[in-house]
């Protein structure tokens, strides 16, 4: 991707080059964004807050997948299975061992990371489409495990989970759980942004850009490929645990291959190899079905609605919209929303002399 930094880029030290916020305004902008989300319960209803919470935990899991796909150049078609594993793990830890939910969530992340390392073992040797197929197998094997492991997942009946609680403060409503997810999003995104500035982060990017050169320069390929799989699973596990304590019920059927594909869609639509892009992609994927719903509602009762059976087949329309969005983004905007956003910023920065 060509650099979009326009003229007037006066970075002269490595310290300045490594900074997360290029300008003071971007730092202020982010703070304003966080404050706006924190104030959201004042203005939004429960349904809209629920959407925000969805964007939050899906955004965490999508960030994990982006570290794997966008930064390391590996691929996983089994992300939803790891997300589900995190959800069940957190619920099981709380119920079986009575660990407070606050600790269950990170512990579920760690447990999922371990499982991810097991399935990521082939990742040390495989790449590209072979890895895609291996993770596809992982998806089906884990899905089968969920359906069978009664003690762990509650079988087909599913598992009921307890709400988040900290010093007597119960986050069992959208208004309060939003802050839990917001805090988790900030921590996880800050961790990822900083990870990418370390030696390990640069090694991951080197593996993606040219793994042979990376190996020649002393990057241990097997180690970093497996590590990136572990990190991705950790994020998926934390996202899944947050999901479990939000819905308060985890069902076995939720974590199917379509969900995995949606995660990949988030990463591609948001922008491969972009931290904030993961969040944008998650927001896009959460809001897309809503837009389809609004469109179907607008046509409801009319002749088109009767002819096409829109009302009764809304779930198929949503799936079609997901597939179509992925294809259209790949063809017309392969760098994702983040790239579009940078173009818009560059346009205003250079206005009116953009050429």
């Amino acid at each position, binding site marked *: 991707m060509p650099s979009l930094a326009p003229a007037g880029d006066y970075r002269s030290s490595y310290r300045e080059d490594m900074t997360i916020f290029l300008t003071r305004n971007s730092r202020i902008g982010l703070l304003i964004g966080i404050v706006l989300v924190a104030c959201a319960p004042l203005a939004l209803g429960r349904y809209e807050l629920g959407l925000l919470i969805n964007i939050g935990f899906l955004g965490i899991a999508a960030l994990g997948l982006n570290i794997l796909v966008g930064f390391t*150049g590996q691929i996983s078609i089994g992300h939803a299975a790891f997300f589900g594993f995190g959800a069940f793990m957190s619920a099981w830890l709380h119920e079986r061992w009575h660990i407070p939910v606050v600790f269950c969530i990170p512990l579920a992340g760690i447990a999922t990371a371990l499982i991810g390392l097991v399935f990521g073992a082939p990742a040390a040797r495989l790449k590209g489409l072979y890895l895609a197929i291996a993770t596809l197998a992982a998806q089906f094997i884990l899905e089968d495990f969920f359906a069978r492991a009664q003690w762990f997942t509650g079988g087909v009946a599913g598992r009921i989970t307890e709400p988040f609680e900290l010093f007597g403060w119960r986050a069992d409503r959208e208004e309060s759980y939003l802050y839990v997810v917001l805090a988790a999003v900030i921590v996880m995104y800050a961790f990822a942004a900083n990870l990418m500035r370390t030696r390990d982060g640069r090694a991951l990017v080197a593996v993606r850009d040219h793994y042979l050169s990376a190996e020649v320069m002393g990057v241990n390929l097997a180690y970093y490929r497996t590590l990136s799989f572990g990190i991705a699973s950790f994020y998926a596990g934390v996202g899944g645990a947050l999901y479990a304590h939000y819905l308060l019920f985890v069902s076995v059927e939720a974590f199917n291959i379509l969900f995995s*594909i949606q995660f*990949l869609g988030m990463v591609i639509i948001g922008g491969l190899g972009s931290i904030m892009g993961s969040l944008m992609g998650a927001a896009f994927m959460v809001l897309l079905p809503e837009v389809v719903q609004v469109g179907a509602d607008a046509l409801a009762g009319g002749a088109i609605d009767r002819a096409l059976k829109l009302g009764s087949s809304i779930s198929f329309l949503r799936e079609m919209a997901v597939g179509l969005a992925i294809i259209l983004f*790949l063809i017309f905007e392969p760098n994702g929303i983040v790239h579009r956003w940078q173009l818009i910023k560059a346009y205003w920065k250079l206005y009116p002399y953009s050429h």
Partner: protein
Amino acid sequence: MDWSLLLQLTLNGLIVGALYGVVAMSFVLIYKASQVVNFAQGEFLLVGAWVCWWMLTEWQLPFWAGFLFTLAFMTLFGIILQVVVLRPLIGEPVISVIMATIGLGIFFQALMKWIFGVFAKPFPPIFTTERINLLGLEVQTVYLLSLGISVLIMAGFAWFFTASKHGLAMRATAFDQQVAQSLGVSVPKVFAMSWAISAVVSAVAGVVVGVVNGVSSALSFYGIKVFPAVILGGLDSVVGAVLGGLIVGVLENWAQYLDANWLNWGNMYSIAPFYALILILLVKPYGLFGTKNIERV
């Protein structure tokens, strides 16, 4: 041990496996010609079977006419997909191409559910189903027919690639695109043709399965069962695809037998191939007949 049951299961496995082999072959065809891993292969079966079903029930066409229409439709379908979706992605990273075919897969699966509903619908009776006795085993004639069609398609492939001009052009393209181009092969045409042939062959398999089991979205699962088969056989080997398909077909039936008698895990029929897949990838990632990819800097 119940030997006759085991034998019966093996035969069933071979019959289903031959269909897997056919689908795997058309998967390998696309991969060899255009280096695209087609995750929407199962949707080819689905679309083909639904189109044929629609022709036969809504339009009351005789089977041969509906079948020919389906083949013509799938030829166009394959070409249009290649030209509209896959051609703009030439030169993009593997991940983008994989994702595009996955996107196509969910799109068409949902579209078919929207148009035709979620329930399995039977084909109008085409052949009188009877059972015949083969070496002491009861076999439905439809199954024998499906086996016959599979073998016919495989023979057709063998002829196409060894004797026909287009088949040779395709092999030349698979070997080296630049050399093929300099020898006068139109590479874009070969790409489009490989998608068309793959779509048509998959649709034939889809119609066969539809005639036997009824048409439903479960058909697209064949596209996923293809992966164990092609990985076992080697991603770029047509012979390997057929053999891999047969092995997977037999394996899932044996796994079910093992499961029903001793393990009692349940669901082994559909999961065993994926365990096998992981094992193969760990031990011998290029499969039985695949080309080993040796990289030099």
